[in-house]
Each structure stands twice: as C-alpha cells, then as structure tokens.
C-alpha cells in the first residue's frame, strides 16, 4: 500500500480531474473556470506520463503530455484574451452576468 505505484499516480490524476470539474462547474469568475480547465489538463498529463512510465515504456506518453502542455498554453492565451474582451463590455468577469444569450 505504501509502495508508490501506478495506482497512486492515477489517484492523483483522478483527484485533479475531479477538483477541476468542481472548479469549472462552480466558479463565478471566468479566470477561475479557466484555472479549472488547467487542472483537468494536468490530470490527463499525469496519467499520460504515469502510463508511459509504468505500463508501456517508450516516449509516447511523454510526447502526448508535451503537446498537451503546449496546447494548454495556447488555449490559455485565447481564453484570457476573450476574458479581457468580455471585461471590456461588462466591467466584470463574473460569468453569471454573461447570460444575455439564453432560451
């Protein structure tokens, strides 16, 4: 039990995913939601690298994780740019205010 193994890493991944999911579904702040997305992506990354190490060897898991890191950065850039645009209109980044489109 105390011996750290694959399952332990997967548990960390699972918890990161769950916390990320909680974050995106409950945060009012748009930036807060984007942080939740980062948590989810990190969860997947931990899984990838752990599987690569314990299960299959080779570099495929790491490569996947690297691409995810790069795309996460790109996504953060776009997401934050959009948040700024919204802020210009609403003077807030509280997503509950952005409900003009509904129904």
């Amino acid at each position: 039990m105390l011996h750290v193994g694959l399952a332990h890493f997967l548990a960390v991944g699972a918890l990161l995913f769950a916390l990320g999911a909680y974050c995106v579904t409950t945060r009012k702040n748009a930036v807060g939601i984007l942080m939740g997305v980062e948590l989810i992506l990190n969860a997947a990354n931990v899984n990838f690298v752990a599987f690569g190490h314990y299960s299959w060897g080779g570099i495929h898991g790491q490569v996947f994780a690297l691409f995810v890191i790069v795309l996460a950065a790109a996504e953060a850039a776009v997401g934050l740019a959009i948040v700024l645009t919204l802020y210009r209109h609403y003077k807030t980044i509280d997503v509950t205010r952005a409900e003009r489109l509904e129904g």
Partner: protein
Amino acid sequence: MPNAVEIHWAWLIPALPALGAFANATIGKKLQDRLGKGAVHGIAVGAMVLSTAVAWAYFAVMLGTPAEDRYLHQTLWPAFAAGSLRVDLAFALDPLSMMMTLVVTNIATLIHVYSIGYMAEEPSYWRFFSYMNLFVFSMLLLVMGSNFVILFFGWEGVGLCSYLLISFWYTDLDKARAGMKAFVVNRFGDFAFIIGLFALMWGLGGSWTGQKSGGLSLRDGYAASAVYAPLHDGATAAEAEAMTPREHGIAVGPTLDFRELRAEILAPETGILTHLKTTTIFGLPLVAFVCILLFGGATGKSAQIPLYVWLPDAMAGPTPVSALIHAATMVTAGVYMVARLNFLFALSPAAMTVVAAVGTLTAIFAAAIGFFQVDIKKVLAYSTVSQLGYMFMGVGVGATWAGCYHLLTHAFFKACLFLGSGSVILACHHEQDMRKMGGLKDHTPITRWTYAVATLAISGFPVAAGFFSKDEILWKTFTTENLAAPWIGPVLWFVGLVAAAGTSFYMWRSYYLTFWSGSYRGGSGHGEHAHGGEEGMHEAHAPRESPVVMTGVLLALAAGAVLASVLGLPSAWGFTPILESFLEPVTSASRDLLHFSEPGRGLELFFMLVSVGVATAGWLVAAWLYKTGENPRPAAWLAKYAGLHRVVFNKFYVDEIYAATILRAAMWVKDVAFWFDVHVIDGLVNFVGVVVRFVANVDGAIDRYVVDGLVNLTAEAVLASGRGLRKLQTGRIENYLMTALAGALAFVAINYLVH
C-alpha cells in the same frame, strides 16, 4: 412473373402538366399582362389535353395487350441503390393506375376548362393555373409511380399543392390557416405511413444476415439464400440488380417496387408469406401493424376518422380546387394506396376490419354532420368524407374493384356536384349559405338539372352509376368473410345502409334548399370570394346561369356520372362488370386470400330493392320538409332542440369554449412537463377542472370537436414542452458545463449498467 411491356412516352403524361406549371409560374404573369388570360389558360388546358390524349393512347395500347401482361412500364433512370434496395424513377401503368390516370387527366381537364369561367375575374389567374397544373403533375406521379418512393413524392406533392391552393387567397388569414391545418394534419398521417413503410421494409429485409437477430427467424434455406452483401454492393442499378438475392427467379429482400413486392409476397416458394404472417413487432402481428399504419396515412390524405378534420376547412379554397383536389382526385389517394396494396391487406383480417370499420364509421358519421350544414360546400365536403368512407368499406371488406369503381363514379358525380355548387355560388354572387338561396331552378336550369342527376347518382338510384358502385360495396360488405369476425360484415352493411338513407336525405335537402324552396332569397353575399374589388362589379340582379365553359363541363360530368354505369352493371342482372374484369390483373393477387359467401342472386336483388327503398325514403323526407320552403317543421325542430342547435350551428361559440378548454389543458400539460416548477396539487386541481369542463363540453357537442381538439392538444403539448425545454438553456455557462459533465457520467453509468 408475367411479362411487362416497356413503353417510352409515359413520362409525357406527368411531364406535360409539369411543363405547363413551369411555364405559367415563370412567364405566366407577363403573358397575362401582354396577351390576356387566354394565353395562360391556353397553356394550362393545352397541357392537360395533350396529357389526356397520351393517357388514352396508352389505354388503347393496354387494351391491345393480353390481360395477364397488362403492365406498361417505363424506367426513366435508376435514382438510387443502397445494398439490394433499389429505387428507380419509374412509371408503371397497370389496370388500376391506368384507371386512376384516366380519371385524373380527364376530370382535371374538365375542371381546368371550368376554371376558365369560374376564375375569370381573378387577378392572379396565372398563379392559379400554375398551381393546378402542378397539382395534376403530383397526382400523376402518385398514381403512376411504380414504387413507394415515387408514390411518396406525389403524396407529398399533392399535399403541398393542396396547401397552396387552399390558401390561394392568402390575404384572408382564415383561409391561410385552413391551408396550414390541411398540411399539418396530413403530416400526422404521413408520419404513420412512413412508420408503416419502415416496419414493412424491416419485415422484408431486416436481420437476414442472421447476425443481429431482431427476433426474426426465417426458414433456414430461405435465410441462407437471402443474405445481404453490403460490402460488395453496387453503386449502380445494374450492379445492385446483379447482386439482388433471388429465389426461384423472384427477387427477394426489401423492395419498394409494388410489383416486386407483390411477386415476392405472393410466391409461396419464397417463404415470405409465412414469414410475414408469423412475424411480430413490439408484440403485434407485423402485417396488421404495417397495414394499419399505412391505412393511418390514408386516413390523413383521404380524410377519414380521426384525421378528416382538415377537409371541411379546406373548402376555403376556390371551388374548382375543391372539386378537383378535395373531391375527385387527391382525397382518393388513400383508397388508391389501399387498393394497390390489396395483397398486403388481404393477409391481415384485423387490418381489413379496421379499414372497413373506420370507413363505415366515417360514412355514417360524416353523413350525420351533413344534416346540419347550411353552407352548400360544407355539405358537399362532408358528403365527400362520407363517400370516401364507402370506398374504404369496399377495399376494406376485400372488394377492391368495388371500392375502385365507387372511386371512379364518385369522381364524376362529386365533381359535378362541386362544380354545380360553384355555378350556384357564382350565380348568387359568392353566397354559400343555402338558406339565402332558393328558387334557383328557374334561373339556372342547366346547373339545376346536372345537380339533380348527380344527386340521383350519389343517393343511389339505379339510373346513375353511384347506385351500382355503392350497392356492390354494400353487397360485398354483407357477404364478406374476410373480417376478423363473421358478424362484422352484416353490421357494417346495416350501418352503411343507414348512412345511405342519410346521404339521400341531406343531398336532396341541399338540392331543394338551393333550387326549390320558394323563390330566391339572397342578396349580394361575400361567402367565398373575399378577395376584394370584384364585388363592386356585380349589381344586385337576379341569379344568372353561368357561361358555357362552365355549364358544358357540368353536362359532360353529369353524362359521365350516368354513363359510367356501363362499367359496372351488376352480375345479379346477368352482366359481367367490365371494370371488375379490367382490374382483374391487379386484384387477382389477393384472389386466393379473399372469400365471399354466396347467398344467392335473389337476396342480392332484394338488397338492391332495399337500397332503392331507403334512398327513396330519404328523398321523400327531404322533399316533404324542404321542397316548398313552407313546411314549418324544420324551424320548429330547430327551436325545440335549441341547445343542439346552438352547439352545432354557432361555430364560433363552440370554438371559443373549446379553445379555452384546450388552452387550459395545454397549460396543464406544460405543468406536468415541469412538475418541479409547480405544486402537484395545483396540477391535480387543474386536471380535474379540465376533465370536468371537457366532459361537460363534449356532452352534446359533436365528436368532431374532440378529434379536432386532440390534434390541437397534441400540438399544444409539444409546443408547451418546447417552451419549457427552452428554460434548460439558462444562458449560464456553469449550468452548461454541469450538464456536459453529468451527461458524460450518466452515459458511463448507463453504459455500464446496460451491459
């Protein structure tokens, strides 16, 4: 399979009206402005005449062919092939579709000619003729198509044209709404039709690979030879043809072609007959399921219970449209379809019983409503519904040819009646209320006599064709052995007989109210033609006979209504009905499956006497009550049964009550859909209130409003749930994300549990 005759010019029959429609749609307005209306109807009527000529030519070809080979066929191009399921753009003329084609082209030509007179003052003359031609095109596709897909093209096409023509005077919102209603109600029917078709295809083709069992098990030898090979299926018809599994030279598997379907179902060696009879779907016998749903489609198009509600409203269209579409042709599409599939319906006594019973019920029900109508076109509308009921009785009890014969005779006399009513309406300055007519026999002699002949035909006097067709149906109904239980036939016969008496009564009532009943009572009305402008052109003068293009058509149709008797002189009189033997190649398919008892010629002759007797009774009562216009009893009875009177006659009053009821009911449904939004108690209270009000209103009111209401209620319920579902889209992103996540988790759970 008997040989088919390949023909090459059949496409002209529908193509000519299509061309006419196209020409008038594109350049019609310019032609009308520059060359006058003659150019417009020249194109339209010319197209119809040519098309009719081609149809007669092929009729001649058909008569020159041995009876068993009477299947004229033309494939334009292979439209589509999926696996072994192939659809060609193909036309087929067998005796049944030949008869229908002739009816459609000839009656339509006459009605086109009539429209020249009737629509003479219409500014959008070109648009009218364009729609009319388009309708004929669609109708011809419907009757000439060799497979379900072409039939469905036409089926939807006539619906669309009907919609366009009912709401022809679209500036009047009520008329536009009537058009919408026709279209939407018809879609309900279409939906049943499509599902029936699905189930049929499934029964013919599903699961034959034996891998994905849908509860089907076919005879081993059969299943092995009928395996699909989708991996190697062809993109072209030739390839698909080459790979169609064949058993004893007959293609098996799902097919949309009527002839192939018939061949594979009827050839016992394919095993499909047994297979279809033993298969069940959702626990129901497959054939019954399929046939009842297909018939459901027919109830929409042919205005049977419960989907007939659109037809009376459809009278908002111009009268020639009512005559062509809502009496002579389109509404018979359902009968045609059932007749065409007689081999399928014959497999299921339950389905036959449903068809016959619904037909009979509709016949008497619509006849009863006809008693109360004062609008001349509404009377004819309900009589159409009623007569269509007779046709379904005929095809439902297994007397396919009798149903078709009634279809044919009805086309003549009902077109004559409708066009006669159009002539009357024109003479009375667009007045449709019979109470404001009267005494027209002196003003419009030709209309009066033709109307009288047609009335003789519809009420069943042996001088005109309607007698023979209706009587054959009644006789077959009495002697049928094809229904679910032996007592049903005689019961239906009795109901049909009562309906015949009713028919005779209300038709003669309309005749006397219009043409006798004292002197002309009307002024200048605004009944049908609310298009504005033209009213001023009429001065208040006495009714005047219509122009010769109209009366000529009336004479032709009246003559047709009498002469059509020749086609069906009964065997009880020692004749062999010509039409029966002509249709034999079509009906022979189900010959072995259908049986009629033969109680003897004497009884048949006696029944004919009874028929004539009840028709005479109806006539006499009508004459007694309405001929002089001075008999006080109708008015007295109306006063006595004032409650009924108010409910039936005061349509607005009833509609308003009903609208309120529906509104409440719809609110209730909405509440149920979102029960978490409201207190359950409120919902229950509403429910009780709605039910009480509902019962109270139904009590004494005519059933039609219930049916109408149910259709509305369904629509309202769907709309209400749509409004409710919109609330789910809150506009708040966190709710969206919650849904997405919960959805993913829920599907994981379902997936895991289902497995």
